[in-house]
C-alpha cells in the first residue's frame, strides 16, 4: 500500500474518534469485527443519540402540546426545539413548514393523499423516474388508480442518469406533480434536482424530492432549491427509527386538506363541524413518536459538528478508493456509474447471484445489502435480479474497503 501520510487529508475529522462515537462499530459478527456497509438501509447511531433517547425516557417523558404540567412543557419545548433545528438544517423559511412524520414513506404518503386528493383529477398525470424506491412509486400508483390519472416515468441511460431531454418531453399541461429521488438508493446517482425544479417551475409544476438518501451526504437548502416538498428519514441520518420529516412550502401546506384525523390536528371539534389546527399541527394527528422527534435533531447536531462538507469529501474519497479496486475483480460490474454519485456502490459479478455474495460477506462480518433494494422496476430495466450494495458512511475506512474487496474475491473464488 502506498504510504500517504505525507499528504494532508482534505477532511478535518479524526476517523478514530468518529468511530469511537458509534458503539456498535466495535462489536463483532460471526467472531469477526463488524464492517457495516449497509448505511443506505439505516445508519448506526452515535452515543449522543443513544444517550438523548435515554435522557428523554429518564427525565422528559410526557405527552407534547397538551399539558400544563412541567414535564409536558419540557417535552413540548424539546420537541419544538428539534423542529427548529430540522428547519435550520434544511434552511426552511418557517419552522411550521417542517412536519414531523414517521419517515420518508410516511411523508410521501402524506403528500400523495393530501395534495393528491385536492389537486389531482382524472386525466392528470404525476411524473416519477425509473430509479425510484417503491415508496416513491406505490403511493402515486394508488393515487393515479383512484383518480384516473397517469403515472409517467423519466427514463435513464445505462450509467443510471436521468435523460433530461426525455424528461422535458413529459412536461405538459396534465402534470400536477413531479416526485423524484435526489439520490438513488440503488445506484448512488445524484440527480440534477435544481435543473428539474427550474424546468418544472417554468411550467408552474411543483416538485417533491425524496431526499432519504441525500440529506446524510449533501447539504440541503430548500429555499435555494426552491423545492415544494422534501421528504427524509431520521434513521438514515444517524437518528432514531420512526422519525421523519416532510418539508412543504407554506402555500402548499396551507392549501392542502389534513391527511389523518385525530387529536392535536384540530382547533375545535363538534359533531357538526371541525376546524383544523394551524401548521404544522394540522398534519400531525395523534401523539407523535416524541422521543424520535426530539432525537432526530441530536443526529443532526452530530452531523453539523462534523460538517457536511467534510463528510461529503471523505465519503467521496472512499467511493474513489473502492470503485477501481472492486472493478479489478474479474466479472464484476458496477451498476450505477453516473458522473455525479454519492458513496453507494452497487455491483453484480458474472456467474454469481447477489444473495450468494451477501451470505459469504456476512460470514466475514461485512454487512451489505443484497437484492432489488425496493427498486424492482429499476432492476428489471437493467435485466438483473438485484445487486450487492455497499453504501458507505463517514465512519467507514479504506481498511474496511480493502476487506470488502478481499471478501468479494473470496466469495467469487468459492462460488464460480
Amino acid at each position: 500500500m502506498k504510504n500517504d501520510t505525507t499528504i494532508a487529508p482534505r477532511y478535518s475529522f479524526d476517523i478514530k474518534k468518529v468511530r469511537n462515537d458509534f458503539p456498535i462499530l466495535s462489536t463483532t459478527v460471526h467472531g469477526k469485527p463488524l464492517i457495516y456497509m449497509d448505511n443506505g438501509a439505516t445508519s448506526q447511531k452515535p452515543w449522543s443519540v443513544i444517550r438523548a433517547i435515554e435522557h428523554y425516557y429518564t427525565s422528559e417523558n410526557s405527552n407534547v402540546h397538551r399539558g400544563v404540567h412541567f414535564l409536558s412543557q419540557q417535552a413540548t419545548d424539546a420537541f419544538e426545539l428539534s423542529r427548529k433545528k430540522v428547519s435550520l438544517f434544511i434552511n426552511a423559511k418557517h419552522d411550521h413548514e417542517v412536519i414531523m412524520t414517521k419517515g420518508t414513506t410516511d411523508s410521501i404518503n402524506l403528500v400523495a393523499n393530501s395534495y393528491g386528493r385536492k389537486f389531482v383529477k382524472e386525466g392528470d398525470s404525476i411524473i416519477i423516474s425509473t430509479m425510484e424506491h417503491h415508496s416513491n412509486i406505490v403511493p402515486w400508483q394508488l393515487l393515479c388508480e383512484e383518480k384516473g390519472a397517469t403515472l409517467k416515468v423519466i427514463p435513464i441511460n445505462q450509467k443510471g442518469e436521468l435523460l433530461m431531454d426525455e424528461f422535458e418531453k413529459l412536461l405538459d399541461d396534465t402534470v400536477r406533480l413531479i416526485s423524484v429521488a435526489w439520490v438513488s438508493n440503488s445506484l448512488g446517482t445524484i440527480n440534477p434536482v435544481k435543473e428539474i425544479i427550474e424546468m418544472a417551475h417554468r411550467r408552474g409544476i411543483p416538485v417533491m424530492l425524496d431526499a432519504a438518501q441525500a440529506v446524510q451526504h449533501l447539504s440541503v437548502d430548500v429555499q435555494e432549491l426552491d423545492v415544494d416538498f422534501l421528504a427524509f428519514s431520521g434513521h438514515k441520518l444517524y437518528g432514531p427509527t420512526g422519525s421523519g420529516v416532510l418539508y412543504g412550502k407554506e402555500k402548499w401546506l396551507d392549501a392542502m386538506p389534513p391527511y389523518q384525523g385525530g387529536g392535536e390536528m384540530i382547533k375545535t371539534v363538534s359533531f357538526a363541524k371541525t376546524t383544523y389546527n394551524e401548521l404544522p399541527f394540522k398534519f400531525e394527528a395523534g401523539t407523535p413518536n416524541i422521543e424520535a422527534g426530539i432525537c432526530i435533531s441530536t443526529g443532526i447536531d452530530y452531523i453539523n459538528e462534523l460538517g457536511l462538507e467534510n463528510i461529503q469529501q471523505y465519503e467521496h474519497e472512499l467511493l474513489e478508493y473502492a470503485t477501481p479496486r472492486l472493478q479489478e475483480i474479474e466479472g464484476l460490474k458496477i451498476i450505477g456509474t453516473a458522473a455525479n454519485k454519492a458513496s453507494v456502490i452497487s455491483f453484480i459479478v458474472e456467474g454469481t447471484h447477489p444473495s450468494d455474495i451477501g451470505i459469504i460477506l456476512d460470514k466475514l462480518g461485512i454487512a451489505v445489502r443484497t437484492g432489488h433494494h425496493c427498486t424492482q422496476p429499476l432492476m428489471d430495466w437493467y435485466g438483473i435480479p438485484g445487486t450487492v450494495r455497499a453504501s458507505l458512511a463517514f465512519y467507514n475506512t479504506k481498511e474496511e474497503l480493502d476487506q470488502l474487496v478481499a471478501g468479494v474475491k473470496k466469495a467469487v473464488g468459492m462460488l464460480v
Partner: protein
Amino acid sequence: MTINEIQDELVEEFSMFTDWMEKYEYIIQLGKELPLIEEQYKIDDNLIKGCQSKVWLHADHQNNKVLFTADSDAIITKGLVSMVVRVLSDHSPAEIVQAELYFVDKIGLKEHLSVTRSNGLLSMIKQMKMYALALQSKVPNNQ
C-alpha cells in the same frame, strides 16, 4: 431410508467440517450437483419468489411417493434446496406431512430459514408440505 435417517446422514456429513467456509463450499457443491428441474417445469406456476432469490419447485406423484425436483437462481439457496429435496423427496405424502425438519438447525444453518433471509427456502418447505397434504387427502389410507 426414512426422512430422519436422511437428516441424520446430512448432519453426519456436515460434522466433518470445522469451519464455515468448508460448510459453505460443500453447500455450493451440492447446489452445483442438484439435478436441474426440467426446463418445462421452470415456469411461473412453480416459482416461489423470495425477496433475495427465486426457487422453482416441481412435484410428481408415483406409487404413493412424492418426487420433488427444484432449482434456484442463487447457488447457496440451491444447495440448501437440494438438501431439503434429498430429505423429503421419494417419501409418502403422510411421511412428508409429518416430517419435522431438524437438520438445518443441527448443521448450524438456522439463519437460512429466518424470515429476513427471504430466500424462498421456507416457502418451499411449506409448499412441499402443502402438496403432500393435498395428496394425502386425495389418496385413501389403505396402502
